[in-house]
């Protein structure tokens, strides 16, 4: 690295330690140090392995040494994960202990004991490493100001994970609170590299905002698994390549296999075991597994005691697993950032490239994988869209504020709108949220004598909590992460993990399913515990977790379209893919980058319309529902639809003649409200909103109420509210959440705005090669209910292929 004489870090207290370790300072560390010293808030973008954690601590440590014997809290470090917080402590410990610096540091998360928390309050450390939720709790204590008023620095780690979700909203509000307590507070953000760096800066920085960026010049080596087998037309389980994946594991010392859903993780794990002739140590890791099981896997991973771990996003962030040699991504990458994050889990050494193999599970995914590799070469990352702050999080924050003591609503409002996500929060919206915390905020005033916060008689702007007992309720409900109702799985007396209640409801006694890599038989459910025993059954269900599906990023979708259109590239693909695309070109058409191909053909008495939008699963799902309504209006008698990331297929009794008249922006404006009304999307999100805003209480261990009952009663509340007070702020909030998350409103709107001029309509006599994958999904969806095995699917696939007259491809 370029160390010159003017490097101010050569005088830094840590320099001695760096020298001892034979390490040198990175340019971005020098730059950050200088910016922060001159009073700037800074966001640092650097890849893993570039000393990011240390970068954050350079200024705090320097300042603490200069201040000599500083008493009290000096620096807060916010980590997205509890496990990561512990890791940070271990990293910080080394230089501080070895140099015998007079700096105290501790961790404070949900896992910290109440005793230790109490001690921290009495005698705070100089550096506290914590999470957004624990920070919110800290701010809600009566003596919060006293505790936090001398704070000099706040460091936000992995800031890119905080930009587009409700946790970001919560964090932003609490940072502004800290700034109020301690006006001189400086902010340092640490991030993986990002496309829209300016947005991250806007979100975090207030004082002389600065960006520091360090790009890794060593690109990762990513390739697609070269398979001798036939890549399936559709499906998501990659069974065709299981033997080849196994060979790849054997070739490397330590491999992480990333999959996209928990169900895929269980499936992949089980099937690797079935062929595990070399007795490799293979483990599985996902968010539903019991904490101890997860910790055991993580521990074995960091010590290199396993050969392979099959994981979901649960292992994306977190500890440094230095020995991981290879990443295998099974299934669609879905987004560039995500793929890079995963690939970066291998080989935490900047000078050697990370190695990864992509395993597409179907033909579209092959194109997607190819496109992702191209984009990574060009360093074309996904944009992370900053979100507008959610109302329910403000409500929770108001409650927290009241717990800390009486407050002036004008001061609070002014503080809240300093937070970037809430710049545009209107005063009347804020007042509605005050009312929501006060008594539910209903037009019908029935609860005057039961208020939770009340206005002082002498000053109507000052609100106060009605009694201290309420603080306990706030503390039980803090945070923005709402899990689906889950049940504990018990094998004998051992807890294996949590499973979605919805899945268990569909099981009968004796049914078997795969969980934690074992085939289990469902025995009974009592007191929210699911009793299971080991099963020898070969037919088993795999729990489907509703949160598992994330849509294809717009960036990658555009790249897929571009790549598809580049026919001069096709010859570089495996023969089966090339043939597939060539057939499509002959029979129908390959859409150009900005075209929207629509194919129509008759099949088995019905009429099929396939639209290739590449809009991602959520937007396509929404479009499918809207088109059903549009088709109904034109009396085409639609029967159903299926959507995936790339396309939508609808089938109807009558020929759809006016597709160009239906498929445009008018469709969205006309039918969206109806759609939201009829499906349970808003209703489901209302539950999250009601819990986050503390209108109803969260299910907690030991409480009699089951998750199902919470769900049930929030449904009732939704129904009553919708009928009597459709303008209630929580309904508005749920509706906005739906637009953003579940239906991908903005993305769909963008597409529909321009689609009518770009439609390429192809009337065909039968199914096209490009349509085969999605048509197969129709049948798969219907078949899965009957527990049909792969043979039948194979059979069906052949039947459809014959129909498409493309059987010769294989």
């Amino acid at each position, binding site marked *: 690295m370029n160390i010159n004489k003017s490097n101010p870090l050569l005088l830094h207290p840590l320099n001695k330690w760096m020298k001892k370790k034979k390490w040198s300072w990175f340019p971005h560390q020098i730059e950050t140090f200088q910016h922060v010293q001159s009073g700037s808030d800074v966001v640092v973008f650097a890849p893993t392995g570039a000393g990011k954690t240390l970068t954050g601590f350079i200024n705090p440590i320097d300042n603490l040494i200069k201040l000599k014997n500083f008493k009290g809290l000096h620096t807060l470090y916010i980590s997205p994960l509890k496990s990561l917080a512990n890791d940070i402590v271990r990293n910080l410990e080394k230089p501080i202990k070895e140099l015998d610096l007079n700096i105290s540091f501790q961790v404070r998360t949900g896992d910290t004991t109440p005793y230790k928390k109490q001690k921290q309050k009495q005698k705070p450390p100089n550096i506290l490493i914590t999470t957004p939720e624990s920070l919110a709790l800290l701010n809600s204590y009566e003596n919060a100001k006293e505790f936090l008023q001398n704070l000099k620095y706040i460091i936000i780690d992995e800031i890119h994970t905080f930009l587009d979700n409700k946790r970001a909203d919560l964090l932003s509000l609490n940072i502004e609170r800290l700034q109020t307590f301690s006006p001189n507070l400086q902010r340092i953000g640490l991030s993986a590299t990002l496309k829209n760096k300016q947005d991250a800066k806007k979100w975090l920085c207030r004082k002389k905002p600065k960006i520091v960026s360090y790009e890794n010049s060593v690109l990762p080596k990513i390739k697609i698994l070269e398979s001798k087998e036939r890549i399936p037309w559709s499906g998501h389980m990659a069974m065709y390549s299981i033997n080849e994946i196994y060979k790849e594991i054997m070739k490397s010392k330590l491999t992480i296999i990333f999959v996209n859903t928990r169900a895929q993780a269980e499936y992949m794990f089980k099937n690797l075991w079935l062929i595990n002739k070399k007795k490799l140590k293979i483990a599985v890791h996902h968010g539903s597994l019991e904490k101890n099981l997860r910790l055991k896997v993580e521990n074995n991973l960091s010590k290199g005691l396993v050969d392979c771990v099959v994981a979901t996003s649960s292992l994306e962030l977190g500890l440094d697993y230095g020995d991981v040699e290879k990443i295998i991504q099974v299934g669609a990458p879905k987004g560039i950032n995500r793929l890079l994050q995963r690939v970066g889990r291998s080989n935490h050494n900047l000078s050697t490239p990370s190695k990864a193999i992509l395993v597409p599970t179907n033909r579209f995914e092959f194109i997607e994988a190819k496109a992702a590799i191209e984009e990574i070469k060009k360093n074309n990352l996904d944009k992370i869209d900053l979100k507008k702050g959610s109302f329910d999080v403000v409500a929770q924050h108001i409650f927290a504020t009241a717990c800390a003591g009486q407050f002036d609503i004008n001061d609070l409002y002014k503080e809240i709108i300093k937070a970037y996500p809430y710049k545009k929060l209107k005063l009347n919206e804020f007042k509605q949220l005050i009312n929501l915390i006060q008594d539910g*905020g209903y037009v019908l005033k*029935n609860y005057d004598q*039961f208020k939770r916060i009340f206005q002082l008689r002498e000053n109507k702007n000052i609100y106060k909590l009605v009694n201290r007992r309420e603080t306990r309720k706030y503390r039980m409900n803090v945070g923005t992460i709402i899990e689906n109702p889950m049940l504990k799985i018990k094998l004998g007396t051992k807890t294996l993990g949590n499973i979605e209640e919805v899945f268990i*409801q569909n099981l009968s006694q004796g049914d078997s399913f795969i969980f934690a890599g074992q085939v289990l038989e469902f025995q009974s459910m009592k007191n929210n515990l699911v009793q299971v025993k080991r099963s020898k059954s070969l037919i088993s269900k795999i729990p489907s977790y509703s949160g598992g599906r994330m849509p294809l990023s717009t960036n990658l979708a555009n790249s897929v379209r571009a790549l598809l259109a580049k026919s001069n590239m096709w010859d570089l693909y495996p023969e089966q893919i090339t043939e597939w695309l060539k057939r499509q070109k002959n029979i129908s058409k390959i859409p150009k980058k900005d075209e929207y191909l629509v194919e129509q053909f008759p099949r088995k008495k019905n009429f099929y319309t396939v639209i290739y939008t590449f809009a991602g699963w959520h937007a396509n799902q929404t479009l499918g529902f809207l088109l059903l309504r549009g088709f109904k209006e034109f009396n085409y008698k639609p029967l159903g639809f299926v959507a995936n990331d790339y396309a939508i297929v609808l089938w109807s009794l009558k020929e759809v003649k006016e597709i160009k008249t239906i498929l445009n922006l008018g469709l969205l404006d006309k039918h969206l409200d109806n759609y939201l009304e009829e499906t349970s999307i808003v209703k489901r999100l209302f539950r999250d909103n009601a819990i986050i805003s503390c209108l109803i209480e969260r299910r907690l261990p030991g409480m009699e109420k089951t998750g199902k009952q919470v769900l*049930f009663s929030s449904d*009732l509340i939704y129904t009553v509210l919708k009928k009597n*007070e459709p303008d209630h702020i929580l309904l508005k909030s749920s509706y906005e959440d739906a637009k953003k998350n579940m239906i991908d409103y903005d993305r769909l709107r963008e597409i529909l705005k321009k689609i009518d001029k770009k439609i390429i309509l192809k009337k065909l006599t039968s199914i096209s090669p490009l349509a085969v994958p999605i048509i197969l999904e129709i049948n798969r969806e219907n078949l899965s*209910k009957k527990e049909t095995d792969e043979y039948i699917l194979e059979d069906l696939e052949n039947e459809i292929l014959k129909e498409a007259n493309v059987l010769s491809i294989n």
Partner: protein
Amino acid sequence: MYYQLINFGNEEFHAYPDKSLYWKRLNTLIVSDLHIGKSISYAKNKQFLPPYDTKEILNKIFVSLDKIKPTNLIIVGDLLHDVFSTLSLKDQDHKNLSQYMKNTDFIWIKGNHDKNIQIEGFKNFTNYKIDKLLFTHIPIETSLFQICGHYHPKVKISHRGKTIFKTCFIHNEKIFILPSFGILTGGLDIHSKQISDVLGKNNLNIYPVGQDKVYKL
């Protein structure tokens, strides 16, 4: 309104999708577990449910009374959620109630939630016998046929890979349990121990309540 015909205790009843039961021979309407004022009772613990339940429940019952014009209205317990609930009955509600009481006898069988509460115009009973039928909130030891409430039964229905819960009317040979007529009232699975202890597990007649129709399983 469509109704489902139910034979119980050698009598014919009509089960309505609004969760009321009609005994035609005696022109008697039967409802249970209204839990009026549940919202206000929760509000005292700072759980602010939408305060419209009382209004909606009363409207629902008035609509039914207007249509059927019964001689008797039997409430099989838990008319009110608790002592605080009376706060949610406004003057106008009392006026409306006394209007309806001119043509209909209101027979209020006390439940566990409202046993110590009085409302003007209502006749209070611990249970009420007509012929071979006994109306009581919770079933008791008796040779009579009993019509009860209390349990808020709901049934789990699994079909084509989907599972739903539906409020239901349910009875065996001797005991009939009404669903809750309330708005913010939850339900209890009919296979839970509490209900099995009362009805047993076999020979159950189950009638799930749909949007506009009461079904028969």
